[in-house]
């Protein structure tokens, strides 16, 4: 059974896309268009949320309804999401539990399911789970130098909405393999950089990003039904306490044998405040960079990356 019209569901941060597909929706992560955007919002703190808010209000992003992740992860989204809602877009506010309470998350997922019109295609849970398994394989190939970090990032970050089309997305996962020298293995933690060529820039400076913290979360969680999704997504690190996230990071960085960590921070994002804690807890040379507006990686950021490579080469 196919609907004549599939609703396009905007999402402001990670919302289980498997549930949206199962409810016959087409997930669309509004952040995915920001790095290539030429939109300079008038009233902004963080450019990520300000740009999608402005584009939504002006109807430059065509969606039928919006899910705002208002609890856990992004704080600015709570206000910018309300501005989008006030402009007339049907909006649902989704809250992750800070303490990982599975029952709370399950109740949130049921509310979301009602907003989306309830589950019509339960098999989509398993379809998405299978694709995420392929995503983790891609991540592993990057870790072993079989595919470039920019290619791996491009795919992993797309797992937030799986391009809104599972068949199209499955075809996009077919990547040519090669052999990439893994000098200067670094992890990229924090929110993804707002620059569309950041991974290429790092690669050109001989820094190999072998871990993308947030995109890895996009392939890490899944489930065959709402209960399993709740069980797994309650470990979504960005919505949890710093201790929880740091413990996960420590294991992941060790497993991936990284030599250094790049902490990307976004201007006026509350995650900036985490930098000193991450520096104190993660025992690696760390470079903190901060971006503001989208575009190409600025020269000043490239200088920092190059100097960081020199640090790694000396240590």
């Amino acid at each position, binding site marked *: 059974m196919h609907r004549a019209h599939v609703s396009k569901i905007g999402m402001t941060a990670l919302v289980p896309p498997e549930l949206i597909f199962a409810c016959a929706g087409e997930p669309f992560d509004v952040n995915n268009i920001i790095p290539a955007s030429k939109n300079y919002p008038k009233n902004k703190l963080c450019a990520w949320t300000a740009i999608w808010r402005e584009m939504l209000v002006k109807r430059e992003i065509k969606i039928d309804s919006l899910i705002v992740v208002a609890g856990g992860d992004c704080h600015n989204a709570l206000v910018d999401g309300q501005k989008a809602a006030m402009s007339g877009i049907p909006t649902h506010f989704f809250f992750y539990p800070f303490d990982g309470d599975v029952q709370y998350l399950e109740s949130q997922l049921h509310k979301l399911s009602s907003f989306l019109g309830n589950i019509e295609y339960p098999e989509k849970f398993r379809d998405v789970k299978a694709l995420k398994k392929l995503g983790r394989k891609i991540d592993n190939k990057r870790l072993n130098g079989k595919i470039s970090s920019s290619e791996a990032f491009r795919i992993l970050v797309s797992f937030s909405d799986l391009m809104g089309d599972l068949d199209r997305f499955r075809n996009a996962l077919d990547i040519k393999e090669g052999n990439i020298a893994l000098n200067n293995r670094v992890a990229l933690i924090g929110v993804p950089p707002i620059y569309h060529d950041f991974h290429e820039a790092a690669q050109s400076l001989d820094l190999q990003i072998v871990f993308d913290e947030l995109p890895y979360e996009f392939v890490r969680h899944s489930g065959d039904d709402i209960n399993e999704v709740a069980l797994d997504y309650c470990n979504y690190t960005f919505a949890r306490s710093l201790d929880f996230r740091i413990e996960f990071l420590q294991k992941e960085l060790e497993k991936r044998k990284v030599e250094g960590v790049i902490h990307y921070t976004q201007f006026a994002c509350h995650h900036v405040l985490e930098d000193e804690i991450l*520096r104190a807890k993660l025992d690696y040379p760390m*470079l903190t960079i901060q971006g503001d507006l989208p575009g190409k990686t600025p020269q000043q950021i490239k*200088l920092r990356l190059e*100097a960081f490579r*020199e*640090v790694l080469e000396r240590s």
Partner: protein
Amino acid sequence: MPSKAGRRFMIGLDVGSTTAKIVRIVDGEIEYQITGTHNWKELVKGVKKEDIISTGYFRHSVPHRASVTEITAAQFGVKHYFPEAEVIVDIGGQDTKVIDVKSNNFIINDRCSAGTGAFLEFVANYFKLELNEIGTLHFQAKRIPDINNTCGVFAISEMISQLVAGYSKEEVIAGMHYAFARRISFMIPETETIVLIGGTVKNEGMVSALRDILKKDILMPPEPQIVNALGALKYYS
């Protein structure tokens, strides 16, 4: 730079946003030359590309055998004078870099002119003075007005208000040095000793204000402007 006919030397070339510097070591002695960035070619007349180690903002644009970022060059250059240096503050014309040598961390202010040499240049230009002159006038101030604005443009308006309120030119200049030094101090981590380098630190008034605010040991190499060029040379060798 004295001619050393018939002998080839490696040189460190630092081409920054406002000045270009060249360093070579001849019989154990450091020789250097400084000019405006636009004249950088004058510094390398007759020098072969294979003998140049470049650094600075334009390090990739000038001929070089090898290049190194100014952040790494600063560490190698400072080490020559102060092997135990923990924190280096490089105040240049267009940016300020704070390098925490121990933790391999560096903070760069390149978004806002208030913490760079450009800020003090605004002040000097306003009074139609040279940069070194405002550094000397600082010490003639009898009292120091509070200039609280952290934005370069607004600080200039505040400076004018203080002049209208009756503060002398020397006092207002000292106030601006304190405003600048306070801004820099926010970037400096906990440490006992700080090494200052870069063209702007030749301003004695600003250094005095920074010393007063930080209450730490402040060390400076004999010629703070050529440290990165020296560091490039040392890095390579």
